């Protein structure tokens, strides 16, 4: 499996912490989509993506995040993306998604 996902809800910060390990592309994006949809159907709260072990993402993964964001932003919840590699951050900047999601170190 080239993508592992671990999700934990934090009662303190009222958000989902999602730890990604591996690559998100056309093959693994569906797995991410299923998991994130499952989380927000349980609790429609903010999602913090932990990207320290995320090796690769492209438009297939970005598209999943956009789709999830559209569902939670109606409740004024956001997506935070933390600790991503510079090459991945670059993709968020090029696409303008750094203005939609919160990118943090």
């Amino acid at each position: 499996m080239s993508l592992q996902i671990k999700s934990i809800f934090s009662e303190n910060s009222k958000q989902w912490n999602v730890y990604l390990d591996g690559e998100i592309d056309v093959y693994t994006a569906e797995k991410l989509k299923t998991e994130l949809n499952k989380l927000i159907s349980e609790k429609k709260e903010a999602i913090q993506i932990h990207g320290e072990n995320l090796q690769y993402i492209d438009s297939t993964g970005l598209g999943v995040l956009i789709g999830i964001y559209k569902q939670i932003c109606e409740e004024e919840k956001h997506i935070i993306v933390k600790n991503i590699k510079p090459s991945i951050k670059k993709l968020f900047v090029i696409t303008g998604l750094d203005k939609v999601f919160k990118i943090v170190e």
Partner: protein
Amino acid sequence: MEKEMDTIKLSIPNKPEYVSVIRLTLASVASRMGFDVEKVDDIKVAVAEACTNAITHGANDEEGNFEVEFIVYKEKIDILVYDKGKGFIANDIEQPSISNLKEGGLGVFIIKSLMDQVEFIQNKEKGTITKMTKYVGDEL
């Protein structure tokens, strides 16, 4: 003066699990050519976007293969992705804005942002060729 180039051709099944194989092959070719790490990352994303398009929009025949070619020059690489289907609409190239966020359509925009030259060539009735070029050095 003869233009020296090497051509590498891959024939890949129309299956998502192989896109990462193409990325890795391309990364190894690009590193060999002397591209720096940032450019190798750019090229990996661009080729994956083009292959994703070929698989999701292009393939008529799920059991078949699509072709990818790397043409290695001294100063640049040309990457050609051949999709066999009806092709895809290559006009969606504006930067997404918050008000018109789309889940699809980012791929072409990303390819154009990361590569130095991009062409979409209609291959008669047989589909589309996505041709992407990246220069090793910083001249444009």
